[in-house]
């Protein structure tokens, strides 16, 4: 529980500064050409002010919780996550996504997606090769054809249909 409020403190501190920067940035946006017209900076300034206010309140709130430990307990125990914030699986997925995005245009949607499902499935612990291979081949192909029919353009990469 303690960790939650520490996180909230960082977040609210960050958004407080963000809000201030938004206000300053919006002030220097150009003024409207005609009098009475609302300039581009008015609305963002308002948003910035609101962010600053709510961040300040959240900062105070999280400080209180951190000291007294009175944060409301989650009521249904199935929702309590005891896992660490980052584990091996999550890092694998994020790295896989980065590689996938990098290869997306070079290899094309179909091939990079096949590789993605195959590699990610294996890394996450799938060991039944037949269903894994079938899904990784059929699923991207089916999506490619479906989107093709719907007229959405995708990078074909090195295969051209």
């Amino acid at each position, binding site marked *: 529980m303690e960790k939650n409020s520490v996180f909230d403190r960082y977040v609210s501190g960050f958004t407080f500064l963000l809000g201030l920067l938004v206000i300053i940035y919006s002030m220097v946006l150009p003024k409207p050409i005609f009098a009475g017209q609302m300039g581009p900076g008015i609305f963002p300034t308002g948003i910035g002010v609101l962010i600053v206010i709510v961040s300040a309140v959240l900062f105070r709130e999280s400080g209180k919780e951190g000291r007294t430990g009175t944060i409301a307990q989650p009521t249904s125990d*199935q929702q309590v996550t005891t896992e660490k914030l980052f584990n091996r699986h999550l890092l694998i997925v994020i790295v896989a996504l980065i590689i996938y995005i990098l290869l997306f245009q070079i290899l094309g949607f179909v091939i990079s997606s096949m590789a*993605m499902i195959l590699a990610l499935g294996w890394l996450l612990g799938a060991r039944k090769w037949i269903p894994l291979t079938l899904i990784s081949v059929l699923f991207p192909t089916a*999506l490619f054809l479906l989107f093709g029919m719907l007229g959405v353009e995708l990078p074909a990469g090195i295969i051209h249909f």
Partner: protein
Amino acid sequence: MDIWQHLLGGFGIALTPMNLFYAFIGVLIGTMVGVLPGIGPMSGVALLIPVTYNLNTASAIILMAGVYYGAMYGGSTTSILLNTPGESSSVVTALDGYEMAKRGRAGSALSIAAIGSFVAGTFSVLMLNLLGPSLAKVAIRFGPPEYFSLMLFGLTAVAGFAGKSRNKAFLSLFIGMLISMIGTDLVSGSERFTFGISNLSDGIDFIIVSIGVFALGEVFTTIVEMNKGKQTRFRIEGKIWPSREELRRSVGPIARGSVLGFFIGVLPGAGATIASFIAYDLEKRISKFRHLFGKGAIEGVAAPESANNGAAGGAMVPLLTLGVPGSGTTAILLGALMIHGITPGPLLFEKNPDVAWGLIASMYIGNLMLLVLNLPLVGLFAKIIDIPQVYLLPMIIIISTLGIYGVSGNIFGLWLLLFFGIIGYFMKRYDYPGAPMILGLVLAPLMEQSLRQALIMSNGAYTIFVVRPISLVLLLLAAAAIVVPLLLRKKNGKFDQVEKDMEL
């Protein structure tokens, strides 16, 4: 023309083979989305937006709305069989539904859930059908000041109800509004918050944020929690059809749940999840069988399952008649309609009767399809949950990236997607609700536009918002939406249990 003639025209559109097909696909995907715990109606609808890009508007909205109300049906299946709610709106169903399954009455619980969902779904479409056009007639007199105040009320109400901490909900809302400011301001032509990055000059598409925060964020959360112990699963034994006694006992809860759900759904802020909790609570107080609650009372399944469907239908009322969504999922539907060049609102019934009435007619048909799908095939849908996560998660990732690439057409969109996915993961872990962010993102540009128009009307005087009576009332409601939950919270902590991760 009266509404029935319009409705007939709507059926003319909804009953074309193409639209019947889209309604069917919509409710089918909706049921699956409902069954799968990792993916909710918001991600389901958001993931479909890119797919429906090139469809005509009526078909697109028929498909996406089908996912929304279809998810309300599917949510109960895993609540009852597995004690793992597929959606937050079916959390309360598990209390008695799982108990019924333990006692070998899974079949009756599932069929009562389907019947209740059908009755409530049909009731709420009927109400939408009856009330929608007259509400639109009132709203047609709304000018920019009224719209601004209305949207303000909608936003405060949603953030006011959402989440464990209202401050986190408000922060999420304001950050969403801020994200919507990125890009070129169409009136003055000046770029805002782009910092010279040309990819940002068109702004950040709300689909990227929705899919990132919801679909990808959910994938990341599921992956971290993967390989947890499995719960005992109950098979559907014997007949599915409930006994006459069970049916009789369900009539009252279904009727009350439907009405309650609908009206709660119409209000901004209180979505399907709150509706299901309130309906359950009501039955627990007034039922003759209240001593059986928590031990497998059929009322405890009938009432919340009716209420969440009623609420899903009710939430369509402000979306279609006012153009102001009261929940995260309807905000995504609003964004989807705007992509198709349609701004929902009072003029929708006049200008785009094919969309408005086609949708309403398709909802009657969709609910019927769902009843048929869910009664005999419920066992089949329950099997969806057997698909191992190791296959499912990469597939959701692929659909997400594919959708975003289809929308943005460049790799920059994919990097943003990853960024918002990670943000969404942190938000989920630390109880920052995502729905207000999407709502702010979709509504802020509309609010700015109304504000501008209102200030032109008044020559720059902000008093215009308080001298016009309707606008003043809406502003007072907005103030009440901030103050009332504070008072409620002090009185009883009842909402606390609902608030953990609401589908708004």
